[in-house]
């Protein structure tokens, strides 16, 4: 139990997927203009991450034991098609949930955080439960980073920022400062 909690907190804060591993930067810089959208994108990403962890575990345990060189290709194909199936199922079963998450699902599949999660979980030899916790932590961390970034960006829109600086350069510098702040959490685990 301790181990699971450790995995969750460390992926949420210390090894935040966006701010420490640079995974999922495209949506982080591209879609983080509005708080509401960022939050929903974060939730949808968490959902896909959990499914990814499940797929990766099944593939690693039952399929890829004899052919590790097929790992990358099978991860991509299986994850993308599973997400597509689930998207269709949600559309059929719960149109309201589809309205809030659905539009993001196909985009998220090509996000590097998804594949990154599968590869990291494999490299670290996580089991099913550990993998799911890892995915939840990564998703929560992604949502946290997105929401913080969107909040800051909404504020800076009112401020006087020179036209030359506006855009990606400015967002990257904000991200750098956020990332610096998150480094402080590393102290949480230094004694253990």
């Amino acid at each position: 139990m301790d181990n699971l909690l450790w995995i969750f907190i460390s992926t949420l804060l210390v090894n935040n997927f966006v701010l420490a591993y640079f995974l999922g930067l495209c949506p982080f810089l591209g879609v983080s203009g509005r708080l509401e959208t960022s939050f929903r994108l974060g939730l949808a990403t968490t959902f896909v991450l959990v499914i990814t962890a499940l797929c990766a575990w099944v593939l690693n345990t039952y399929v890829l034991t004899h052919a590790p060189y097929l790992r990358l290709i099978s991860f991509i194909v299986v994850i993308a098609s599973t997400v597509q199936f689930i998207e269709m199922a949600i559309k059929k079963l719960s149109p309201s949930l589809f309205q809030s998450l659905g539009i993001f699902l196909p985009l998220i599949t090509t996000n590097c955080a998804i594949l990154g999660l599968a590869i990291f979980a494999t490299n670290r030899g996580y089991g099913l439960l550990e993998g799911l916790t890892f995915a939840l932590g990564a998703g929560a961390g992604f949502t946290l980073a997105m929401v913080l970034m969107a909040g800051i960006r909404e504020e800076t829109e009112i401020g006087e920022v020179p036209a030359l600086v506006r855009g990606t350069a400015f967002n990257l510098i904000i991200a750098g400062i956020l990332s610096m702040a998150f480094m402080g959490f590393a102290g949480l685990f230094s004694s253990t």
Partner: protein
Amino acid sequence: MATHSNKPTAYDELLKGLWRDNPVFVQVLGMCPMLAVTNSAFNAVVMGLATFFVLVGSSLLVSALRQWIPRPVRISVYVIIIATFVTVADYTLLALLPAAHKELGAFLPLIVANCMILGRQEAFASKHTVKFALMDAIGMASGFMLALFALGSVREILGEGKLFGLALFGDHFEPWVIMILPPGGFLTLGLLLLIFNWVTERKREFLAQVAEQQAGNR
């Protein structure tokens, strides 16, 4: 730039990736792998070479096969082709440079998720002949490598006072450790983008001035 004719030559396709359409500085694509591995110039070059191999290989194959790839499933086909080349690059590096492979770790397979590579297949290689696709891929990959190298060397020089492991300053230099840590990646890329924007803006102003003067002389 040789843009006097309307039809771009293969040479133009090669050059555009280096500056005018640089994948990192202008299109801001493929950032996930580039920020994570550019904490030293050597890692940046290894990552750049791997990306170069994958982009050139997949552009070549996609453009050669473009008549046989059915449109509705084209994205999946591109992804599988790219993933194949990445697997080849991954295992080659493991055999040749095990130390570098260990350093890059999970970020090498993540080349698959580099949107720049998929973007070139969709936007260029699937619509042009092999010759043009090859030129475009070489140009884009070199531009990407250049940007990786710029970022990696700035971070290594400031963060460790070294370049390719060689000490540049005397013992008095206090390294800015933050530069080789994750925040340094964001800050350096942000500042490089600022410089790039500034240079582009100055060039545009200069050209506008020249045009104005020429109009005045007439």
